[in-house]
């Protein structure tokens, strides 16, 4: 009688989801895998042997990564957070410039019209709701935190430039709005000297250097 025996790596799917694949350069599905070597008889796994560890596998290119790859947000989630951060700061600045009349709301909507991540159809009613929610500086800080670590320097500069322009255009903006800009810069890890340079750049009327990413 012939007995066919051997070893085989069997993988167990621990979970799945969507991630940013560094190899593909875009958002794809992934599988979180645990691998273990098994002793097989007639190709049937009988005895579990060595634990081969865990990995994250891209469903498109099949490249395996360590779990740290999941720390990077997907492009879609980054855009979602970017839109929220823009709305949060604009709404907070509007809340610091009472009364919130049509002109103030109009300036806020104008600032958000060119902001990335803000959905089409965002209107005055939506901004009024955001003003109520983001009047609290703690809420603004919480919604800035996710993008602070992932935004490029140029993106932070463009973000702050947009807010500085808004404060300059708000009819009732007081010193508290300027102070809020400093808090936003600190949350984005932009130094006071760097912020002063951006302010100077805006006041000189120079065009923006780049995008918001």
């Amino acid at each position: 009688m012939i007995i066919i025996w051997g070893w085989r790596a069997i993988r167990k799917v621990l979970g799945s989801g969507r991630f940013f694949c560094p190899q593909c350069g875009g958002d794809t599905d992934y599988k979180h895998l645990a691998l273990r070597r098994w002793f097989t008889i007639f190709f049937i796994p009988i005895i579990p042997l060595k634990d081969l560890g865990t990995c994250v596998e891209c469903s498109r290119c099949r490249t395996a990564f360590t779990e740290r790859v999941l720390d990077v947000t997907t492009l879609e989630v980054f855009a979602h957070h970017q839109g929220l951060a823009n709305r949060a700061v604009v709404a907070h600045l509007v809340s610091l410039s009472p009364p919130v009349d049509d002109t103030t709301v109009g300036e806020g909507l104008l600032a958000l019209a060119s902001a990335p991540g803000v959905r089409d159809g965002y209107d005055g009613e939506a901004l009024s709701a955001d003003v109520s929610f983001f009047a609290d500086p703690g809420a603004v800080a919480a919604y800035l935190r996710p993008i602070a670590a992932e935004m490029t320097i140029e993106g932070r500069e463009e973000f702050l430039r947009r807010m500085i322009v808004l404060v300059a255009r708000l009819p009732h903006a007081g010193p508290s709005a300027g102070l809020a800009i400093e808090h936003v810069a600190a949350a984005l890890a932009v130094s006071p000297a760097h912020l002063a340079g951006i302010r100077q750049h805006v006041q000189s009327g120079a065009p923006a250097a780049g995008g918001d990413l």
Partner: protein
Amino acid sequence: MIPAPPEGASVLFNPPPGWAAPAGFDPRRGHLVDPAWPSAPEGWAFWLPDASAGREHAALPSTTLRPTQAEARSVRLRNRLIVVGAVVVVVGIGLAAWAGLASSSNQPGAGSCWGGSSEWLHEVPCSSAEADYVAVGRTASPDECPYTSDTYLDLGDAILCLEPN
């Protein structure tokens, strides 16, 4: 407020109706809820079992597809059948080996007693009055029998050396 997922379970986030959550949105990874999204219905299940979780072979083409819940159930059923089949195979091999050993141990050997006519011997209890001969060895040929053995029994695959009892 999104409740924490059950510990140890493979689950996926299930956004409530009206939530325009981007693909890959997962509160466990620090993703934030849009304050404009409506409240979730009472008792909404924010976490659903991940149907793709389970065991699979690295080389199977099914690994390229995300299984639906029905497929996941059939995969689990198949895995159970494989485990049951493996157990049956192992038990079968064990039983066959045991049966082989048992049959070989039942073959007559030294110490067995034989009686009957000189041409047609058959195995009998040693306490029987018919026990005319006692086997003193099992060899491949009559020449290998001890000199005290003057009779032998040809079993076909072996020679049983006999002495008068």
